[in-house]
């Protein structure tokens, strides 16, 4: 079947019930989305499908139905950073960094829909993404900085 990821079309030969996460990681070598829990508890696998943040460990590739997948690799690169990534770097959010791909994708989707989120909205939306190192204070600050950056564009 065909899968659209970061603007490219890939042909993959896998079971239709394989979660998108494992198509990305083990079939396409796109490893920005991480495996953390497999049951939508940690958010490390978060990608966008047609602009909406989804847990790719829960979406069967057969249910993509032509949806456009965006992973962190497609959001921005070290040379062309997305505003959320710029904010994450400015605040030095990451410790181990393993959850941060998912955190950034979640934050980017949030700011796309809600350009100026309140503290309560940030807390509510970002609480589905677990960080075992405890970078939460910096995540909060970076989301606000990113919101400002995006509004200035």
């Amino acid at each position, binding site marked *: 079947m065909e899968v659209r990821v970061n603007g490219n079309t890939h042909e993959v030969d896998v079971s239709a019930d394989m979660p998108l*996460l494992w198509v990305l990681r083990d079939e396409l070598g796109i490893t*920005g989305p*991480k*495996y953390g829990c497999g049951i939508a508890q940690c958010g490390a696998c978060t990608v966008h499908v047609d602009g909406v943040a989804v847990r790719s460990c829960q979406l069967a590739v057969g249910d993509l139905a032509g949806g456009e997948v965006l992973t962190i690799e497609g959001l921005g*690169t070290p040379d062309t950073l997305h505003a959320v990534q710029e904010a994450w770097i400015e605040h030095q959010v990451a410790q*181990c960094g393993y959850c941060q791909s998912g955190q950034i994708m979640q934050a980017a989707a949030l700011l796309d829909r809600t350009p100026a989120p309140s503290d309560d909205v940030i807390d509510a939306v970002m609480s589905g993404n677990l960080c*075992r190192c405890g*970078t939460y204070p910096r995540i909060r600050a970076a989301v606000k900085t990113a919101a400002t950056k995006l509004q200035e564009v």
Partner: protein
Amino acid sequence: MSRIGTIARRTFLIGTAAVAGGVAFGTYLVKRPTENPLLDDIADGEAAFNPWVIVNADRVTLIAPHGDKGQGIQSSQAALIAEEMDLEWGDFDVSFGMPSKAYWNTAMAGDVAPFMSTDESRRAETVRGIMGGIFKIVGLQGTGGSTSMPDSFIKLREAGAMARETLKLAASTRTGIPVADLKTKGGAVVLPDGTALKYTELAADAAGLEPVSGTPLCDPSRWRLIGKPMERLDIIAKSTGTLDYGIDLVVPDMVHATVCVNPRQGGSLISYDATAARDMTGVLDIVEVTNGVAVIATNTWYAIQAVNAVEFEWGKAPYPPEQEQHWEAVEAAFSEGSLDSEWRNDGDFGAAIGSVIEGEYRSPYVAHAPLEPLNAIVHVTDDQVEVWSGHQTQGMLVDAVAGVTGHSADQITFHNQWMGGSFGHRLELEHIKQAAEIANQMRGTPVKLTYSREEDFAHDFPRHISMGRARMIIADGKVEGMDLSIAAPSVISSQMGRAGLSVPGPDSQIAAGAWNNPYDIPNYRMRAYRAPELAPVSSWRAVGANAAGFFFDTALDEAIHAAGADPLDERIRLMGHDVSRKVLEAVGEMSSWGGELGPNKGRGIAYVESFGVPTAEVVEVTNTEAGIRIDKVWIALDVGTVVDPVNFENLVQGGVIFGLGHAMNSEITYSDGIAQQSNYHDHEAMRLFQCPEIEVRGLENAEHIRGVGEPPVPPAAPALGNAIFAATGQRIRELPFNKHINFV
């Protein structure tokens, strides 16, 4: 395979350049020179004096010999070398150390010595020196115990100074200008006329020189990097999804595997039926490993699906199957026959007079559960083995693989990887041995083993359980005495036992955080009792100080409240250690301790010293109708020197969150010998909406530099419990707190 070849192959994986025609420097001027792993098999025109710095015609490469599990040690260690070498920040490559005795951890050795970290007596220093010698002989290259910075603070700066001076000598030899007239700046030797000779241009010349040693280190007043905010070298990669962790690596022709091993840890595999699993999509093979089965497939998800379809008959657990039996075994250890050590007997507790209060405390098993599940790639051929994984003890890993495959250590190459967290989980070797077992049955094919999250939880050798019993004596509004007994299985014995080592003498971790605190309680008796080995346990961020620190500080808080004294003032009055007293005073000032609080609010303070770092925390909570809300935390701690204030703040805040989150709601319990918690839904720790504001202050009064990875964790639980008591009047003596009170 040459050792330089090892570096070259690693660089293929992590993107640094190979060594070709250059010079490798380093230091550690010990009485007997230690093996320099960069020195073997050097080609003509190359030279390697030492294990830390490599310069060739293209670039400067620094070796940061500790594992990076998120603490940022690669950046911090690079900064130490770059400071002395006058390198511009980031204008160099960094590589992890390979397994080598040259990289033994001297600081970790010192912390094994049974002396309080505040004890700087000649005897204590002598024993620490002896322990360091033993660690050197065994070459324990470990990352843990918050020792990376203490281990490297001097020797990596010496390495940088040696490299700088040798490059200056090379420039002097070439130009005829005396060394004294040369300066260094921006990765170059600068001549009196301003001409800059880049280090890379001088590499070949320097390769022929004896390294210059004994140069005094740069005075701290002239530091450009140390103590200043610096951008972590990994921050862009970690913010763009471009950093490869061990779990992300791909080796050509690699296959994917996962395992299901008896969830009763250490129990046997009696039989299994893989008939259905063998026919499932993507399955390549199914093989046995010790106490379990591995599925090899074309995709990790296929492997996980198939292993879940295998039917198993498991043997019994080699420990009591039910949690209540574990507690009974710990409780039974409060007896003379189980005394592990009487750590303190200050004054005369038996003769102390006053009113008596008592408390009994419990601390549960807790999982490490770093977000990156355990994984390893192993490639076995008849004459060599390669291993790619993120690990904290490189040398022990090589020995473990050798034990499985029968290769000699020289035939085994280990490529350490970036770790997606550890908290002590990646000290363990079972997953490495399993990956080696699978790959050994498939010689010639690289195998990547990835644990499912459920397998990771089932085999997370957790933090040990522990019980404390305290009697406190109060007189004239003061704490006059404490008699604290702690019973627990030995985490060191369990952990070292799995590595085939036995550690003689008492286990200081049963009592760490209680025996070593520097309070001058007039009558203080502290005894540790050793429970039998129960579920296998492991070092969990800050290890023993979590339980023992919770018991000690909670008991002290109870005594202070019963005495009618102020929790901060009484702790300061009792404190017998200047550096610690300043930490308490700082957190009091930061939090405006003693000021008016709003309705339903309460504050608790706690002090625990672990890994030589005096740490005090104040937690403020509100007792809402729906439960306890943590509003704010203030924390002051003294690590001697703060290398990078930004990373320092991040790690300290993270440590507080780690401590609070698990104290709130996380434990592992056993039933039928199996951990009942299987994923983050039932072992959650803290999520963002529960995270308080956390104000951090790093003090620099202590004489020696210390690490900051662990010390912020232990005071969090007692500070939170003390705050809950202040807000509600409810004293909770058992972790996790949510067994007794709700959180919002």
